């Protein structure tokens, strides 16, 4: 049985420059998600280059990329659950604008499960999501959006968080087709929830693949093209974070960031050199050098194939 030849789906493949220019607007709530791996540094840098302003940045773990973005002045507010340079230490640009009486960055703070639950409420179009966190803590005092809700079954009272609905969610993934059907393996984080919760979605990928690759293994798809507005092909776009199966974390970078981030002048110089000083990811990678990238490649650990069966 054959289908009538379909009108080819419009490709959503775009350059990073165009995707950010068209889909990220001053004042937006922007979520760049990816827990430890698949963090779209490439998109963050382009947002800095285009000098976006007044963004509310949402992310479970504002790490080095948000330190860079906040240092560059794109944000007015941060919505988060853990703030740090993972495995290394603090984020000094963010500390400078959040410590003391002159703090200029507005914070809205949850726990990890609270953030996940917020994205999930957004993805499910629910007015709230219930959870058992926050009992006997100061978090609901610090953040009045963490509220209680009484169960309609018995007396139990649990906490609730409100939906988070980013204007734009940006995720990095191993592969997608031109329509935006996106697959990830390894850590899944909250990318699916953050994408479904958003108004607009940008997917950045290591590889653009034919639709048939996606359709051969539909259980790996985390985001359908249906909700994707742009597909940006940017290999190594998650450097210095990692992409499972493609490259390791560039730990030297994370270690080096400690000193850069502590020193305002050094940080400015870094942004000038590595963000404003390059036109995009291709130049960034050329600057980084092949040798450094080669050192990040992992050995092979194939998943093996399963059979979906052909049913005609």
């Amino acid at each position, binding site marked *: *049985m054959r*289908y*009538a*030849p*379909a*009108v080819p*789906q419009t490709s959503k493949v775009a350059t990073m420059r165009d995707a950010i220019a068209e889909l990220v607007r001053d004042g937006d709530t922007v979520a760049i998600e990816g827990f430890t791996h698949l963090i779209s540094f490439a998109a963050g840098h382009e947002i800095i280059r285009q000098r976006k302003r007044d963004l509310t940045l949402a992310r479970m773990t504002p790490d080095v990329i948000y330190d860079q973005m906040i240092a560059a002045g794109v944000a007015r507010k941060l919505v988060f659950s853990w703030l740090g340079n993972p495995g290394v230490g603090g984020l000094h640009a963010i500390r400078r604008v959040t410590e003391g009486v002159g703090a200029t960055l507005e914070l809205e703070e949850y726990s990890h499960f609270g953030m996940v639950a917020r994205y*999930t409420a957004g*993805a*499910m*179009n*629910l*007015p709230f999501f219930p959870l058992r966190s926050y009992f006997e803590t100061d978090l609901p005092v610090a953040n009045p959006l963490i509220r209680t809700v009484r169960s309609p079954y018995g007396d139990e009272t649990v906490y609730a968080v409100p939906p988070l609905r980013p204007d734009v969610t940006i995720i990095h993934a191993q592969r997608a087709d031109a329509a935006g*059907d996106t697959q990830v393996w390894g850590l899944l984080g909250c990318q*699916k*929830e953050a994408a*479904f919760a958003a108004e607009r979605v940008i997917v950045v990928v290591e590889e653009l693949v034919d*639709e048939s690759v*996606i*359709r051969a293994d*539909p*259980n790996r*798809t985390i985001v*359908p*093209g*249906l*909700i994707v507005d742009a597909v940006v092909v940017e290999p190594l776009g998650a450097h210095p974070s990692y992409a499972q199966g493609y490259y390791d974390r560039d730990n030297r970078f994370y270690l080096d960031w400690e000193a850069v981030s502590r020193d305002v002048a050094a940080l400015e110089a870094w942004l000038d050199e590595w963000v404003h000083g390059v036109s995009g990811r291709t130049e960034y990678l050329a600057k980084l050098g092949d040798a450094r990238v080669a050192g990040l490649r992992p050995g092979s650990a194939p998943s093996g194939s399963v059979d*979906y*069966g*052909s*049913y*005609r």
Partner: protein
Amino acid sequence: MNAAEVVTGAAFSRSEMMIVAAARELAEQRVCFVGVGLPNIAVNLAKRTVAPDLQLVYEAGVFDARPARLPLSIGDPTIVTGATAVTSMLELFGYYLQRGLIDVGFLGAAQIDRFGNINTTVIGDYRAPTTRLPGSGGACEIAINARQVFVIMRQSKRSFVERIDFRTSPGNLGGEDGERIRREQGWLGRGPSVVVTDLGVYHFDERGEMRLDSLHPGATLDAVRGAMAWEPRVAESLMETPGPTADELRLIRDELDPDGVYTS
């Protein structure tokens, strides 16, 4: 379609005409949530004719299925192999349907009233029914969350009733009152917008009431009135539904339902 291709006379059954008319309503639609039974064949016919890019969503957890045969049920393995995405049902109902990503929910029904309220639960009293029907399945939430709802069902005085025995899925609320309810409860959907039967095609007017817009070839207004429990509103410009094309009939008979399960 090309009128020259239209098959006339008794060369097709009433069920075939119903399925063809239902499939044609999907032209221009993008994402369709496929219900159990008749919707399954109508939507699969649409995918092969007027709406090749239609993305089929099955409540079993499948997005953008490309079934290589007519699925025996809405969980057939042929809807999985070659699909774009397979998800848990939590995500399918939560992230796709309740999130508002479904353009059309396509449902069948045992009973319907003039406002498109649907019963698929029981005939008779809920506690001691004369007929126990399947129940909601996903129909209740499809009716509430799909942007619009299409219904396909055979028409009779027992199925087109003044008052349904049980409201499984809400209808077209219509009017200002409906707008208010939707707003207060955060509904995304507009409710039923099309009902296709073996006699004709209905849409809904501004008050949310069903209106006969098209009569199938061979059907008459009297036949329609004889197969429903209320006096129907009829469009001023009542049309005749163009009959099935040879291609539509071939697809139904040779590919989609060679055993005549849906069309007998």
